[in-house]
């Protein structure tokens, strides 16, 4: 007789989805990550439109990471048009991505993950006992949002980002005003490292975990033209299709990706493991203290990697602002290129991992083809793998309560499913 146990949908993740684990005779029969976020066909909306409209459209894919979508899109379009951006634009783009890392990681660490580890339904319920943590977490998130507002016009769906540059270069005083809130947010970033390095992470099964991340060049970062793999390879972003191999599966509206047939992981942990030698400043100092806690085989430690990245992002943002201020901000308009037929791929590191955008343009500068590969879609197969391995391990140990750990694994990936989640249904067939 079949017995179905419906566990409350997974909360505190962005979007709608279910992890379904089918257990029969105490064995895992099947694991399916079902994403039931409604299809929005963003790639189709883009077709036929002028490429200059793309940043406004792709921002709407996701409210937590509109910034990486915009930067990936304009990078791809600039390649197609043959535009080379200025140093100032490049710096502002880096700031825009850092702002998103700060606010997204703060949201995920303090509001979505911490309640898990402390046994609360949400951050607001923690206030009586963990008031300082909640206050510093919100302050950190706010600093990221303030930075977004100055660069791209608002924290969600910024309006200043165009191929070739920004519609408005922030006035010096607005940038200067960001330094104090960023400096004050450092306490929350450092506290996150302390909190997430002192957690006794539940063990997940040991398994080779393939990592991928953008090669940021000389220093740690979120932009670049090449992708690094933990198998020791380096691919130009243009060859993203070989790295992602997307296929559509019947049970999910997010596509599935594998690398040479194997599941792989993108996100903060992969970035940290592949690029930690490029860290500097306080993030490097803190890494030295907590490095032994970062476990390549345990995706739960992704949270600690996010915390370290937040320290880096705050410090690097202040550094870039000071550099821009000392050189003086130039009144630049976005570079408008002559329309031409062409194609280009752009890759950036979104908070959840590598994000690719690819466009083909016609000779009027209209988009004829768009392809967007999101981090969550790349991570799905790896999440399913860890869910399966963990469920098998728990069942073998005779444990009945699978759901909490399985939910934690999913949430550690910080899945963002409006890219394409409330999860973990365990279905038991006896």
């Amino acid at each position: 007789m079949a017995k179905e146990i419906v566990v409350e949908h997974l909360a505190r993740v962005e979007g709608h989805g279910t992890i379904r684990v089918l257990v029969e005779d105490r064995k895992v029969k099947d694991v399916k990550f079902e994403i039931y976020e409604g299809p929005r066909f963003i790639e189709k909306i883009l077709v036929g439109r002028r490429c200059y409209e793309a940043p406004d459209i792709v921002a709407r894919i996701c409210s937590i990471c509109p910034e990486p979508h915009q930067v990936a899109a304009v990078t791809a379009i600039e390649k197609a048009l043959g535009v080379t951006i200025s140093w100032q634009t490049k710096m502002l783009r880096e700031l825009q991505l850092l702002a998103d890392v700060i606010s997204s990681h703060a949201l995920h660490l303090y509001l979505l993950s911490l309640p898990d580890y402390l046994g609360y339904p949400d951050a607001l319920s923690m206030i009586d006992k963990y008031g300082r943590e909640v206050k510093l977490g919100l302050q950190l998130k706010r600093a990221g949002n303030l930075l977004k507002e100055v660069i791209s016009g608002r924290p969600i769906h910024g309006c200043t980002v165009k191929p070739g540059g920004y519609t408005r270069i922030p006035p010096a005083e607005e940038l200067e005003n960001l330094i104090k809130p960023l400096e004050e947010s450092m306490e929350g970033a450092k506290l996150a490292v302390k909190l997430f390095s002192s957690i006794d992470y539940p063990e997940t099964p040991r398994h080779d975990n393939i990592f991928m991340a953008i090669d940021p060049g000389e220093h740690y970062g979120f932009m670049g033209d090449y992708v690094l793999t933990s198998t020791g390879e380096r691919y130009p972003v243009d060859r993203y299709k070989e790295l992602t191999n997307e296929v559509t599966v019947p049970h999910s509206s997010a596509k599935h990706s594998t690398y040479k047939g194997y599941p792989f992981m993108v996100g903060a942990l992969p970035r940290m493991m592949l690029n930690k030698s490029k860290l500097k400043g306080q993030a490097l100092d803190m890494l030295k203290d907590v490095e032994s806690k970062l476990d390549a085989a345990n995706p739960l430690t992704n949270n600690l990697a996010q915390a370290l990245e937040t320290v880096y992002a705050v410090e690097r943002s202040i550094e870039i602002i000071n550099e821009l201020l000392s050189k003086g901000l130039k009144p630049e308009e976005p570079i408008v290129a002559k329309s031409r037929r062409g194609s280009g791929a752009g890759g950036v590191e979104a908070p959840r991992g590598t994000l690719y955008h690819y466009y083909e343009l016609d000779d009027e500068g209209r988009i004829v083809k768009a392809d967007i590969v999101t981090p969550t879609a790349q991570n799905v197969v790896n999440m399913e793998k860890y869910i399966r391995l963990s469920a098998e391990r728990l069942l073998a140990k005779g444990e009945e309560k699978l759901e909490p750990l399985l939910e934690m694994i999913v949430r550690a990936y910080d899945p963002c499913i409006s890219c394409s989640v409330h999860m973990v249904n365990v279905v038991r067939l006896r």
Partner: protein
Amino acid sequence: MASGKVKVGFYSLTGCAGDLLNILGMEDKLVEIFGNIDLMEFVMASSRVKPGKVDIAFVEGSVTTKKDLETIKRIRENCSKLVAIGDCAIWGGLQASLTGLDPKELMKAVYNTEENYYEFLGEHKALSEIVQVDYELPGCPIEQDEFLQLLIDLLRDVIPEFKDYPVCVECKIREIPCLIVEKGEACLGPITVGGCKARCPYYEAPCISCRGPIKDEANVAGELLMLLEKGWKEQDVVDKLRLFAARYKDISKLIRRV
């Protein structure tokens, strides 16, 4: 109201979750806001879902799947006041710009299959096309100050006021040079409902009408004519008009014509 507080639920259908995230983005006011309501459901922020009817339901997102359809009907049955928040809930969102295209073709173009795995309804609809909606708060995403005012009004049982004037009014108040007149840009401020304090023009970007048209009052034909006179191509202007409000009657007529 056992606690004496108004029972409030926050719900999300198909969209980017930006309106709810923007509410969570009021970092310095969250404790006060949630201290003054009985929070029944806000899945993005809390794993605690309380059973029972709610006084006010804030709903974002378009009705795109069979599940959305069931969810919005269930929410309507279980709330006293239903508030649509954001462009997806009010106009179907930018995904509604695909209205009229064959669902099979859409599936094929994006998911490389004609099979409808997702129980896609074939169209992205606004909440008011399905259920009775009491209030609509525009924006993509909504503005925080407007949400806060609306919430306070509803908690005090005051009838809320909504803006019925164009973005241009706020541009003038802030003394922002007109992007249409000064730069010849295809700014949609004249037909777009104000309330954003002319955010995009302030950042030197033309209005893309993410707040949607001024209901029943937007002079779409006038906007189109003006931009054609400025040398814009008809297809480009219609494309801009349909991005956020393809289901607005005057704009859907234009789409058929081009």
